């Protein structure tokens, strides 16, 4: 029972002009040739990112030296459980971390034209600078788990999309309105013209999520950061939204940084995976290698402990012992060692492993692979 979803393919007549066409970018994406990506290829390259929260009880190292690359036109999935710092990482990229959080170190190299390797470090801009505001919502957009957080209840949807477009384009008022209608239609909202005049609370949960995507997409961003956009949704709505995001990616040739705790969603949508645990990257690599041959004991344990449609009924799955420590009580050494099946006394509880390549495509931070 498969039904083809309808795809509006009409070219968008808008004020945007893209210098590079989709095929050029795909060439760049595939030129990596299976090698571990170098910063030059990536549209977004995060290096040594540290974000800390200065609370009354002390400093919480929410993001503690995170490296990963997002390739043009592809989807990087960041997966991790609560407290792993995945959402803070996303917010750090746009410099929208709430106080008492502060980015204390690292580089976020944004390179909209990978072939020219002319990247800029977003962290060299002040959070409130004009440059950063042009990038936020213009070049890099973000969608959230809770769509109401990106809308004001006091303005119609049309007003809000108009505001965004006024900030990031030179279109006239009528053009902005038409573009808003067009995007609402493209994300699959019925009666788009009428919906432009409605307030966000009139939209259902799934529709709000679609409207938020329309708002994030209307400026044709190069990178879309999706922070758990389907976590609060039912499975059938989740399928709709994942489908929509993939369609948007194909049509607009943008990169997606997809943040989730759900490995099923990762397997559905990601091209590459970065696994985080307590503020650090434990493993990164292409999605197929990750699911076929996870390297880090945490990745392995996660993959075997989660039931899937292929789990037979009444089957016991191995579980991971213990629970995630509070980021403030981070264990000494490798943060995962108290729960690790491959724990090596005297090694894992002493030093912190470094993220390093184990083969052409995968990088792992684990002492099991050190010295290879």
């Amino acid at each position, binding site marked *: 029972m498969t039904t083809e979803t309808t795809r509006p393919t009409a070219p968008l007549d808008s004020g945007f002009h893209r210098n590079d066409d989709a095929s050029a970018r795909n060439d760049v994406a595939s030129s990596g040739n299976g090698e571990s990506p170098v910063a030059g290829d990536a549209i977004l390259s995060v290096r040594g990112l540290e974000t800390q929260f200065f*609370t*009354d009880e002390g400093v919480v190292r929410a993001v503690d030296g995170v490296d990963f690359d997002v390739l043009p036109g592809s989807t990087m999935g960041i997966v991790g459980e609560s407290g792993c710092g995945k959402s803070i990482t996303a917010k750090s990229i746009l410099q929208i971390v709430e106080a008492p959080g502060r980015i204390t170190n690292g580089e976020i190299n944004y390179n909209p034209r990978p072939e020219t390797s002319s990247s800029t470090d977003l962290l060299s801009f002040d959070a409130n600078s004009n440059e950063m505001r042009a990038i936020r919502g213009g070049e890099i957009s973000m969608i959230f788990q809770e769509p109401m957080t990106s809308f004001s209840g006091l303005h119609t949807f049309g007003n809000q999309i108009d505001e965004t477009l006024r900030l990031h384009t030179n279109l006239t008022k009528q053009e902005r309105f038409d573009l808003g209608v067009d995007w609402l239609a493209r994300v699959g909202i019925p009666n788009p013209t009428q919906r432009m005049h409605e307030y966000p609370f009139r939209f259902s949960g799934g529709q709000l999520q679609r409207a938020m995507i329309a708002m994030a997409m209307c400026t044709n961003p190069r990178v879309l950061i999706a922070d758990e956009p389907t976590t609060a949704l039912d499975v059938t709505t989740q399928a709709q939204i994942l489908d929509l995001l993939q369609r948007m990616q194909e049509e607009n040739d943008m990169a997606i940084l997809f943040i989730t705790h759900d490995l099923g969603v990762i397997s559905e949508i990601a091209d590459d995976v970065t696994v985080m645990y307590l503020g650090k990257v434990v493993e990164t690599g292409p999605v197929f290698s990750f699911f076929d041959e996870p390297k880090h004991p945490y990745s392995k344990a996660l993959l075997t402990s989660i039931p899937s449609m292929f789990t037979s009924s009444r089957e*016991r799955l*191995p*579980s*991971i*012992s*213990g*629970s*995630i*420590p*509070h980021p403030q*009580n981070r*264990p000494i050494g490798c943060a995962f060692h*108290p*729960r690790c*099946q491959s724990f090596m006394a005297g090694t894992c509880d002493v030093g912190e492993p470094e993220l390093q390549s184990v083969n052409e495509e995968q990088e792992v931070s684990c002492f099991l692979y050190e010295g290879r």
Partner: protein
Amino acid sequence: MVAGSQTGPQPDVHERVDPDAEDDTKVEVMSQRQLIWHRFRRHRLAMTATVIVALFYLIVIFSDFLATNDPEDIEAARQYTPPQWLRVFDGFKPDLHVCRLVGSRDEFLRKVYVKDCDQKVDVQIFARGYEYKLFGLTLDRHLFGVNDPEVTAEDAIFILGTDVQGRDLYSRLMRGTRLSLLIGLTGIFISLIVGTSLGAVSGFYGGFVDNLIQRSIEIIRSIPTIPLYLGLASAFPADWSVERRFFAITIVVSLFAWTELARVVRGRFLAMRQEDFVTAAIVAGANQRRIIFRHMLPSFYSHIIAASTLSLAFMVISETTLSFLGLGLLPPAISYGTMLFTAQNVQTVALAPWLLIPGIFVVVLVLSLNFMGDGIRDAADPYGS
């Protein structure tokens, strides 16, 4: 029931007790009450406010001990004495004293006072003064004062000055604090009983009763207060005793304060009914009394304390307003309101600005109560950071 559960096969690793729970940090073994106190203590503004409120309550208990002169003593000869600040040092030598004030009349026959610091009036700690009753004992010792009970007007001390009748403002302020705060406390007591019971009934049973109570609250809250006070005050006969008037005023100020408490309690009850732990208690088979008193009420008593603290501030202000307008307590009763009543006249204020000092007390008290209430409310949120 499962005798073998420990010795039986443990199929996977989860028998290893969670590593993060093993270290007994202090926070982990604290009860909810200790946790609230722990969070409250870190709230510096609220802690300072609490100390100030505590000082006010010490004044309530020990007002006569703290006073230096009988607050009701009238002496025309020392009318409008300016404050004589208490001095702790004479040069570099510790010596508690005030400067003597020499009074004379100017060409308009107004009383003027000249400070003469060559003539010291010695002030003693635990000095003998007028007799008063405390905890059933008749005492005549005061925290400080002039030792001779038969002091002349020239030798008496008035550290915050005197009013038109020559009564010591400082001693009256101590007495006034007692009455004003007692009105507040009695009022809170009445509002607490009425407010929590009606709020609980409203929130727990819902339906028609809830409707009736909520609509009544809305109507009461929509009545303009000052005209209502006027009406009520005019209904009190002028020949009522100070005590009767006191209780009448208390009831008037509680009339509004209970509605706020009832709303807080109802809101908490409604929220609480949806809590899983309340459903869990129902499912466990607990009866309604246990659900209300063991599960629901303890979960928001701190909210009630916070709301009461804020209402207390409201009541102190209400009493002050009423008495200032001459609708509440009447002289000879001493309260913040009746003291400020004497400072209604612009000329009086120009001549004797120290008569506004009770106003400062009201501001400090109300601010402190508000900060303290906010602090309790923040600390009481069980899952707040």
